[in-house]
């Protein structure tokens, strides 16, 4: 029912959603609503489910006011309020308080209009973005096209140190075509461009900003205090352009507690209202305490076994296939992640993505098959070294599971555990067999372009497939949904069959909060409501 309701809403644009929900809360009759739904081209069946869920929400009208304290799971002097430089969840949580994007991503990661009033395209290449008028920055200045041009163009300057260079490079030309209109020309067609505009790094800051520590944006909260590595204090923006929803709370104090034990204790002691990222062991503790809740978010986050195809032993396809069959996915799900995970099928696209290829048969744990292939590859004779690190979530434990499975078929695995410090620059896909951890990406295209295209900067297993590259380009330009879905399915089959990566499970995100904090629900965009909880939470004191 919830799913159905969400899909219904996804079919509508933001304005229509708001109108509908307002009408329902204002007490519109069922007949009025069905009329409205009809006008919007929606069936009565869908309308019924929408009314059900909106009246359910009516029973708990969000209250305004209150101060909350939220602890994220990482914080250092590298904390930033510069949208382009964001690198951790802490930054995402803060930047979504202070800024908005041209679009924002909903439950199924489809783009909804935000600062943009309309987005039109010619052949998915030339995009005309019309801005919402009368939106004000926190300092009172009105949002215009120059702010958008400034925010997008920054990504092309290497001195900025943007995290979204790969995505931004496709924008060849960015020009203001009016006070409220921007034209972006892409180097090649990309039907997903509105999704990209809804990602964290493309949040819109004010033109000419040099000191980003002030956090001046158009977002639901204003920045009252920000001190990197210590805390931020956000106060409600009374002048927020979005109507009919949040922000609700008066003030949010946000800081990071990197140690999970300390974080959980802070929640148990009542010092904070919500904490991000708890582990399975602490989840049990929290569930046992009175007045606390766990929010489990299915996500596309995965830790993967990387086998370099350009080096021994990965250059033998039998080795790769054997290792994929050697992964006891159920055991990993149960023992490494205490069931807070979903079994995966060696494709990076998670089941919650609209392009997930659900018809590929699940690759099972099969010691016999693994032994056959590994023997054929000559891998049973000499010990195999696998590099693990706490940097890649769960990889140390996954290594142990692999090691014991290997023992049973007479294969020896040497686990080399290296520190998290410096892992990404020194070990990640530089060793013949090791682990990586990939954060969820909003589209299949981004995932594939970043990690699987032959020329991708982080092609972890050095997998080269010409047909895949062609399909990737074609799917990006394709605006017909059915055709597009088929293309993405074909590409997932290729990755599943021949790429040098094994993805055993998708790891679910776990956040914890007091029952008094309402308005939270799992979002496909990530933990803590895609890190954008601030706008939605309210305190039931």
């Amino acid at each position, binding site marked *: 029912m919830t799913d159905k309701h969400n899909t219904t809403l996804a079919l509508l644009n933001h304005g229509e959603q708001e109108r509908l929900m307002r009408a329902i809360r204002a007490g519109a009759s069922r007949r009025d609503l069905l009329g409205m739904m009809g006008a919007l081209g929606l069936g009565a069946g869908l309308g019924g489910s929408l009314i059900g869920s909106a009246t359910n929400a009516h029973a708990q009208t969000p209250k305004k006011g209150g101060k909350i304290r939220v*602890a994220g799971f990482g914080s*250092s*002097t*590298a*904390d*930033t309020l510069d949208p382009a*430089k964001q*690198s951790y969840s802490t930054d995402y949580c803060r930047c979504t308080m202070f800024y908005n994007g041209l679009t924002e991503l909903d439950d199924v990661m489809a783009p909804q209009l935000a600062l943009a009033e309309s987005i039109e395209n010619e052949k998915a290449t030339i995009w005309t973005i019309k801005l919402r008028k009368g939106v004000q920055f926190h300092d009172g200045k009105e949002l215009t096209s120059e702010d958008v041009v400034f925010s997008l163009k920054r990504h092309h300057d*290497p*001195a900025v*140190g*943007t*995290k*979204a*260079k*790969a995505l931004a490079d496709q924008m060849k030309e960015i020009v203001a075509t009016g006070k409220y209109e921007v034209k972006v020309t892409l180097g090649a067609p990309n039907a997903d461009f509105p999704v990209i505009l809804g990602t964290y790094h493309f949040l819109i800051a004010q033109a000419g900003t040099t000191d980003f*520590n002030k956090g001046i944006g158009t977002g639901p909260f204003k920045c009252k205090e920000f*001190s*990197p*590595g*210590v*805390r931020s204090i956000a106060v409600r923006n009374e002048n927020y352009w979005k109507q009919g929803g949040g922000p609700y709370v008066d003030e949010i*104090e946000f*800081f990071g*507690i*990197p*140690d999970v*034990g*300390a974080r959980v*204790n*802070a929640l*148990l*002691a*009542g*010092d*904070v209202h919500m904490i991000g990222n708890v582990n399975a062991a602490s989840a049990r503790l929290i569930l046992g305490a009175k007045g606390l809740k766990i929010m489990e978010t299915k996500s596309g986050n995965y830790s993967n076994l990387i086998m370099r195809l350009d080096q021994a032993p990965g250059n033998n396809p039998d080795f790769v296939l054997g290792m994929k069959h050697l992964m006891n996915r159920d055991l990993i799900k149960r023992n490494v992640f205490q069931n807070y995970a979903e079994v995966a099928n060696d494709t990076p696209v998670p089941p919650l993505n609209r392009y997930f290829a659900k018809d590929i048969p699940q690759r099972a744990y099969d010691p016999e098959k693994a032994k056959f292939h590994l023997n054929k590859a000559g891998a049973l004779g000499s010990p195999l070294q696998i590099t693990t690190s706490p940097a890649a979530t769960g990889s140390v434990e996954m290594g142990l599971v692999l090691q014991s499975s290997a023992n049973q078929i007479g294969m020896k695995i040497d686990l080399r555990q290296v520190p998290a*410090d*410096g892992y*990404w*620059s*020194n070990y*990640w896909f530089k060793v013949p067999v090791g682990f990586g951890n990939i*954060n969820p990406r909003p589209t299949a295209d981004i995932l594939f372009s970043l990690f699987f295209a032959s020329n991708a*900067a*982080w092609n972890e297993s050095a997998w080269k497939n010409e047909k895949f590259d062609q399909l990737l380009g074609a799917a990006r330009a394709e605006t017909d949904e059915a055709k597009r879905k088929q293309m993405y399915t074909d590409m997932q089959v290729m990755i599943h069959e021949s790429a040098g990566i094994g993805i055993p499970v998708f790891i679910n995100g776990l956040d914890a909060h007091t029952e008094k904090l309402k308005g939270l629900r799992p979002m496909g965009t990530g933990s803590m409501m895609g890190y954008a909880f601030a706008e939605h939470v309210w305190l039931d004191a």
Partner: protein
Amino acid sequence: MTGSIGTLLLGRLLAAIATLWFVATMVFIITNLLPGDVAQELLGQSATPEAVAGLRKSLGLDVPPFERYLTWLGGLVRGDAGRSLVNGMPVGDLIGSRLGNSLLLAGITALVAVPLALALGIAAAVKRGSIYDRAIGMGTVLAVSVPEFLVASAAVLVFAVHLRWLPALSQLGRIETFWDGFRVFALPVMTLTFVIMAQMARMTRAALVDVLSSSYIEMAKLKGASAARIVIWHALPNAIGPIANAIAFSLSFLLGGVIIVETIFNYPGIAKLMVDGVATRDIPLVQACAMLFCGAYLLLVTAADVAAILANPRLRHR
């Protein structure tokens, strides 16, 4: 008297400058040997070669190391520690706000721990061999052997999670009254006192026992001095040297070595700042912190020596 202290201070000052310079150079070399640089750490998974090169250039990391070393040393002499490579803020500002916090925590802990340790140590020395003395001995060995994260976690579990008397986090921003301040500092100060007190108490006892068994104390007893007078007037001044040194060691630990307490109580002090600096390869920040710790250590040790001289008649009149 003044001459002797003046010479000592001058010698110490020159030695301190040489030591600081040596430490600065070593820190510079070591931080440059760390695998990966700030550009790679900042870009993380997005570190493509051209992105790294662009960022390095804008941060001035493309300049040869020796040149960077000279620039940095020159700035340091003028009192300018440079800017953080990670967030562009002046290192002085970053350290300034957190140094105050660290000094506050260290100061409160010292106020609690030093008198307590001295009292326990002196009492143990006076009643040496008694049950009380043995209890103190056992207790301090136990306290030294229990890792501080265990003490801190146990304290949080008992006083914050179960009894709910005290907050689990020590957040300065939430202090409005004296009572708030007490609650905020209670757990970290308790933990740190537990950790540093044992060392100081044992050193006090050892130094004092040593002196109490010497012949001039026997003389004092024979002339009929009271027990209190013997300890405070005759024995203690001669034991101040080692005691002051033990205190100096313990206090220098309070500035840079309290990373675990800062982490568990989320206290924004300077130890965590330095760890952040190392993790992000923010070399100017790491260097400034290292210099600061080194300077504080030198200062404390010198202060201990001066205290020993001032308290000890024999050293004073030499």
